[in-house]
Structure formats: C-alpha cells, structure tokens
C-alpha cells in the first residue's frame, strides 16, 4: 500500500484539518468531536441540513457544506459511520431555530448512529427529521432486509434539499422534498479495481485483470456479481439498464444524468460512460435536462464509476439549478 498519508490512525483528522484551512471562507472545522459546519452558520430561520458517514468518500459530505447545501457534515473513520457524540453537537450547531434534517445513507451503522444522535439532539430541544437515502438498485430491496444502500444519489438529495431549505421551506417541507428526490433517484456502480483502506493496508477486495465487480457499494464491499471485463459501452449498459428499469422511466420524461467516478478513474473515461448512458436514456424516450460528471461520491481510489438518474420535474429542476457555494459543488 502506497498512500499520501502519515499515519492510518490520523488520516481523517489531518485531512479534515487541511480541508478546513483550505476552505476557511466556507467552513469551520470543529475538532474532538470532529465535525464541519458552515463558517457563516447557523443560518437563523433556515432549516439545518446535516449529513455524514464514513470517510473515504470525499468530497462527500464535507465538500458539500456551504450555502445552498449542507449546514454540517460529520466525517467518521474511514468507511465507518461517525458516532452520536459527534453527530449530536453538529446537529445543534446546524440548527437555526427551525429544526434539522439528517440525511443518512442507508447502512446499518449510519442509521443506528444517526438515530441515537437524533434522540440526543431532541433532548436538547432541536427538532430532527431523518431521510434515509437508498438509491442503489444493485441491492434488491425485497430480498435483503437491510434494504438498498445509499450511494451517489445522496448528492442529489443534499443539493436539492439544501435549495428547499434555502428558499425557506419548513422542516416537514424540506424533508418531503428530500424524500421525493430519494424516491426518484436510482444508481448503480461498477468497480474495476478496489481501493485500499489505510488501516487495512490491502485492497478491499481482489479482482483479476479480466474481471470486474458489478453493483459495487462505496465502502469497498464487493458487489453483486463478478463478470468478465467488457467495453465501456457494455458496462454502461449493465449499469444504466437496471437504473432505468427500476425508475420506470417513461417516454417524454426529463432527467438529471449523473456519472460519478469512484476516485481512481480518469475524468476522460467518465465522459465515455456518460456518452453511452445518455444514449440509453434517450433511447428510453426520456431526455437529459441536467448533467453532472465527476468524482463526487468516491470510495478512496477505487477504479470504477456509477450511473445515477434522477427523474426531474419543474420544481426539482429549479431547486437543482439554485445557487450553491461549497468546496466541491458550486454554481
């Protein structure tokens, strides 16, 4: 394992410290417990948005703290959900008097830790609602009772709920928008090679030169099936097909197409995937109204990509377009 780190036990702290220094205009880093809040927060009269999860998915979530998106992010250890004692104060710090929405990716650990944190925050008189993001169609909901995972679609939920909070929606309203995004977004990913968690020192799973893992999560969990290496177009079909099918996308609908890199894939390849995914969306009779291509919800240096499709309507489109000013997403 070769990594630009000093000590596996300190990589998250040092990285977030560097992040705080680099973006002091946008965020303030609180240490011990570790969380990141808007430099100009809490914004009074606005619903607060808090997300978090294991580290190793950067820029998710701290990179999305700022005007128009998150009010606080809580980074856990690498691939390990943060603990309630960090989530709870982040929640209090994000509260501008109108309550806080927790945006939680659907993993047992994240759900349990945010659950406890919500209880703690409510004991301090902050109203908390939770939306659990579960956009990953690789996991079939009916068969596996842990349910679908939250992956790249989380970005869509955070951006759009952030815009809803910004326009003044109350907590129930922001939560409803977040739920609506979650209900209309689906993702599926592929890995060509796994990343290496610093403390583990070896790749999260092993793949030969001729196989890839379809339906990968973002925590180095192996995917649903291992298939022979194929062309970008074929792989993109294997990802986009299930996404479109699960979404039941109809003729004439408009979507956001988001091709996400897993961290170790060149941007040029992501656009090759985007090209084919777009053809497939259009072949389904839908049209691509908005696009995002880049490594936003990563799994360390995993090589691979995911395809996310969000069904848009006028309101969601307007909320997506609304200004956002964060380290990693800005317009």
């Amino acid at each position: 394992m070769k990594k630009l780190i000093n000590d596996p036990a300190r990589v998250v702290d040092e990285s977030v410290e560097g992040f705080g220094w680099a973006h002091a205009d946008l965020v303030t880093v609180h240490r011990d417990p570790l969380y990141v809040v808007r430099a100009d927060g809490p914004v009074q009269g606005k619903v607060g948005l808090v997300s978090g999860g294991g580290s190793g998915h950067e820029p998710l979530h701290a990179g999305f703290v700022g005007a128009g998106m998150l009010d606080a992010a809580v980074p856990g250890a690498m691939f390990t959900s943060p603990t309630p004692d960090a989530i709870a104060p982040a929640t209090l710090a994000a509260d501008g008097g109108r309550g806080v929405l927790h945006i939680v990716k659907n993993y047992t650990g994240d759900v349990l830790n945010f659950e406890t944190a919500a209880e703690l925050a409510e004991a301090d008189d902050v109203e908390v609602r939770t939306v659990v993001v579960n956009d990953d169609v690789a996991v079939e909901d009916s068969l596996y009772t842990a349910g679908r995972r939250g992956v790249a679609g989380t970005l869509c939920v955070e951006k759009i709920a952030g815009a809803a909070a910004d326009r003044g929606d109350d907590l129930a309203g922001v939560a409803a928008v977040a739920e609506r995004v979650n209900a209309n977004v689906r993702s599926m990913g592929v890995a060509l090679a796994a990343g290496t968690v610093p403390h583990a020192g070896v790749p999260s799973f092993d793949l030969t030169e001729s196989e890839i893992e379809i339906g990968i999560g973002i925590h180095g969990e192996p995917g649903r099936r291992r298939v022979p290496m194929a062309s970008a177009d074929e792989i993109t079909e294997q990802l986009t097909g299930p996404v479109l099918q699960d979404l039941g996308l109809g003729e004439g609908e408009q979507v956001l197409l988001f091709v996400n890199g897993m961290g170790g894939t060149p941007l040029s390849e992501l656009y090759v995937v985007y090209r084919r995914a777009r053809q497939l969306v259009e072949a389904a009779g839908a049209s691509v109204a908005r696009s995002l291509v880049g490594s936003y919800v990563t799994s360390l240096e995993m090589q691979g990509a995911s395809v996310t499709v969000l069904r848009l309507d006028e309101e969601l489109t307007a909320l997506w377009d609304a200004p956002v000013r964060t380290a990693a997403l800005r317009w």
Partner: protein
Amino acid sequence: MTLDVAWALRWVRRSAEVVAEHRIELIELDRQIGDGDHGENLHRGYTAVVARLDALDAPPAQVGDVLKLVATTLMSTVGGAAGPLYGTAYLRAAKVTGLDELDAGAVVAMLEAGLEGIVARGKATTGEKTMVDAWSPAVAAAVAAADQGAEPGAVLDAAAQAASSGAEATIPLVATKGRASYLGERSAGHADPGATSTALLLHAAADAATGTGPA
C-alpha cells in the same frame, strides 16, 4: 463464588487484549463480506476504553459502573454498526448489574440484557448472520448452566463456548442483515465478523472469572 468489580475490570482489559490480538483477523473477516473495518473499529474502541479506565481518579464501585463506561466509550469511538450495537448491549447490561457482586443469576440477566439491547437496535433474529447468532446461543447456554447450578465463571464459560459455536455456524449462512447482506448468496462461506468478536469478548469474560489478581 461471585464476580466483583475487579472481575469486571479484568474482563475489560482482557477484552482490549484479545481485540488487539485478533484485530487483523477481524479486519480480514470483514474484508471478505463487509468493508474491512470491524477489527479496526473495535480496536479503536477498546483502546479508548482502557485509556478512560486508566484516567479514572477512583476505581468504579460496581460492576454496572464498569459496563457503563464501556458502553459510552464504545458508542462514542467505535462507530459503524458494531458501535451502537455493542454500546447498547453494554448499556443494557450495565442497567441490570448495579451490584457489587454478580451471582450466576445476575450473569444470566446481564447477558440477556445485552442480547435484548442488540436486538432492540439491530432488529435481527437468529440466522441472519450477525452477532445475534453468537449472543443468542450464548444466552441459552448461560441459562441452562445456571439452571444446573453452575458457578458464575462456569456460566460465562458455557456462554463463551456457545458463542464460539454460534460464530462458527454463521459460516454457511446467507446474510440478510448488515453490510454482508449486499453480497447475497456470496456472503455464504465466511464467518460473520461481529459474531466472531462476540465470542472473543465472552471468552474474555470467562477468562477474567478464573483470574485472581487485582484489575
């Protein structure tokens, strides 16, 4: 014979040792069917537990105080699924062990409370390839041993051995809870990391009962 706060302290320190010794093994198990952090998570947690024990001005008075310290420390340092699950287990166990000494019945009550905590949080039943598959037979074995009049140490021994068998028995299972469930059929063929660590922790408890030195 009963188990006192010195036993509880020995248990905790022994737990930290076995977790350190088995850190890599637990990482490797979790790498097979999860995300490869279970050994690291518990190691971080128990290191913090020992540090907090060492920093105490006065030793805890009751068994329950020790378990509560473990509970809150694990909750605030482990993270992941195991943090809240073990944290809740110890918290519930602490609630029924606000005692100076545990007899066999109290040991059983402690283990039952732990299992209830895990099920309350994680909502898993047996056969879903989780730590419940170690805790559940452990509690059953403890009940049976206590019913037959076993000493507290022997109750823990029975529980630990049943937990080991339970962990072993998770190998062929297909996971339907936790991260391993994403693998579907491919989760079969590997022991569950949380069940494995449960067996280690219960063996630590039994070992601590045979120990005699001060904590």
